[in-house]
């Protein structure tokens, strides 16, 4: 039985059900439906505040056609933030460390923005391939480069999220193992390592939130270009 450092990213199964299933339903369970009252409880007020701030940030610069995307982008950010933050709890599984899942979010949404752009304003969306003011000699190369950058966007979106979270979890596991092993040999170094671990965990909390936000922000930017 070989154990590698990447074992934490395998979704173990119990009675044939992978832990990923439980981890994916948890944001659903955790955020409750709004009640009949205007202000139901402290928890729902907090969530409502966050959603209000987020909607304002993302949709203020966007034209009216893009406002149709409000529901999907808001629920996406809530989902991603919850998944990332829950993954920092001990023994839990983070579904967003799986590239397959992040690509499943990134590719369809990006493709939707491109298709919307091509359908509604084909000239303008094709014109994005060539920035203004390029010297005439560079035009062919630049078109190729811009096309490549367009197609790399979904890949970048998915891989960014995956890599950030995976790297964070891996670092936490490595440093925690080091601190644990050093505890019996050199306690002082172990204490220093534990301080590092604490700081790293704080960083991970920040990264979890930021990465989800960045994901959705970039999607909204792509939408702004195209809608």
């Amino acid at each position, binding site marked *: 039985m070989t*154990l590698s450092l990447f074992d934490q990213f395998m979704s173990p199964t*119990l009675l044939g059900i992978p832990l990923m299933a439980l981890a994916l339903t948890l944001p659903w*369970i955790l955020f409750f439906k709004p009640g009949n009252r205007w202000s139901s409880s402290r928890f729902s007020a907090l969530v409502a505040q966050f959603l209000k701030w987020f909607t304002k940030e993302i949709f203020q610069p966007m034209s009216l056609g893009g406002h149709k995307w409000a529901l999907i982008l808001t629920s996406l950010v809530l989902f991603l933030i919850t998944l990332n933050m*829950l993954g920092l709890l001990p*023994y839990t*599984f983070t579904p967003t460390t799986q590239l397959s899942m992040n690509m499943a979010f990134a590719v369809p949404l990006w493709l939707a923005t491109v298709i919307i752009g091509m359908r509604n304003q084909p000239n303008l969306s094709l014109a994005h391939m060539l920035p203004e003011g390029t010297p005439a000699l560079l035009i062919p190369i630049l078109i190729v480069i811009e096309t490549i950058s367009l197609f790399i966007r979904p890949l970048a979106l998915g891989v960014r999220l995956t890599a950030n979270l995976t790297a964070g979890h891996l670092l936490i596991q490595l440093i925690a193992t080091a601190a644990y092993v050093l505890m019996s040999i050199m306690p002082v170094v172990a204490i220093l390592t534990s301080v590092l671990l604490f700081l790293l965990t704080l960083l991970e909390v920040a990264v979890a939130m930021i990465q989800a936000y960045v994901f959705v922000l970039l999607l909204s930017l792509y939408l702004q270009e195209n809608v």
Partner: protein
Amino acid sequence: MPLHAQYLTRNKHKNGKIKKTSNRSPVTMADRPVPVVEKRLMDVKLGELGTWLGGRDFTPNGIIQAIRRGHDRYYNKYINVKKGGIGGVAMLLAGYVAISYLWEYDHIKHDRWRKYH
């Protein structure tokens, strides 16, 4: 005769004759016999447990309804209150951590038993 009059008096059947009991002790909701299957688990007596289990709805729909009922009860008791604290959500998360540990135990036990990491 008002419609609810029969709820106000309890009629005893004796020798085929209906004898009216006094009006001072009206029939309340608590006196009506409830079918065993619809009782809550804590109200079921031990002898009736078999009947209770046999009558419950174990279809997928029934299970989903039961989960939804439980979820609503938890939510309304701990979270949907005016001055809810961190406790409601914290209990859920602690339960989640515990279940994750259970789920992963088969995988994790090798980590603990290893001599060299």
